């Protein structure tokens, strides 16, 4: 399998590390909702078909990528930097650098 990194171009699977299901939402850091944390840590979709997942180009630019991959065919329909994917952002956290 090859993944086309938005920066590096198409590279072999060996350069990437699977970093998990891309459909998880991290609860607010202050949250004490045990069910929400449990879902974030343990629940994974097991999609047969197009699936959103996170890969790191660990043997390249080291960026994390939001990859949409069909688990039945390995066909990859979309790859972008996770930081551009505009998803799974936590809200409500203190602004960067703000003292606690």
């Amino acid at each position, binding site marked *: 399998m090859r993944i086309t990194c938005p920066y590096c*171009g198409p590279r*072999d699977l060996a*350069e990437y590390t699977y970093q998990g299901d891309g459909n998880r939402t991290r609860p607010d850091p202050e949250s004490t909702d045990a069910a929400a944390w449990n879902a974030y840590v343990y629940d994974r979709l097991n999609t047969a078909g197009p699936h959103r997942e996170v890969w790191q180009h660990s*043997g*390249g630019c080291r960026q994390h990528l939001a990859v949409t991959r069909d688990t039945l065919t390995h066909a990859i329909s979309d790859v972008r*930097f996770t930081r551009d994917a505009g998803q799974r952002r936590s809200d409500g956290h203190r602004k960067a650098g703000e003292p606690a």
Partner: protein
Amino acid sequence: MVDALSPLAPVWEPGTHGDTSAGIGVGLTELAPGSIVQAAAWPGEEKALISAIAAVAGLELPDGAGGGVATEGKGAFGFAPGRFLVTDQKEGLAAAIAERVPSAMGTVTDLSHGRTALRVSGRKAEWVLSKFFAIDFSLAALPVGSGLATAHHDIFALVQRAAADQFDVIVFRSFARSFWAALRHASAEVGYEVS
């Protein structure tokens, strides 16, 4: 000032090696630049950082992923979004660039001791490097000056094409001796010269 010791010093064997019946396929050498520096820009600050590098190192980086420039004794290229590697035979480059890069623009990290730069050159350079990296080293895919980040199993490497048949491979220092041994091993069938 104390000279930095090369990790290859004990295994340095200048001369020709391997099967030289068809000539020397590749030349292998250590570049030992005085400065290896990573400069990294925050999103949106890439152009400003490129200007800072130009002002300090005199290297005009082209725009675009992996774009780079190589001149005698100096080189710079992008290897990740907003991240550039700059090398110079002169020492002290990290501090000089850092002066031009305020924290709002990005960061500068001195890697002069932490990375080892090897040069693979000659008509068989692409052939030898292709044994290590799943990278298309053709001139069309990797033009002169440009660079990239890749890996050979555990060994993370940055590669810059310094000339048509000349590649600089920058590896972590602790891996340098292993990688050097592997490079010699891989070069044996085409004949190589260590200089």
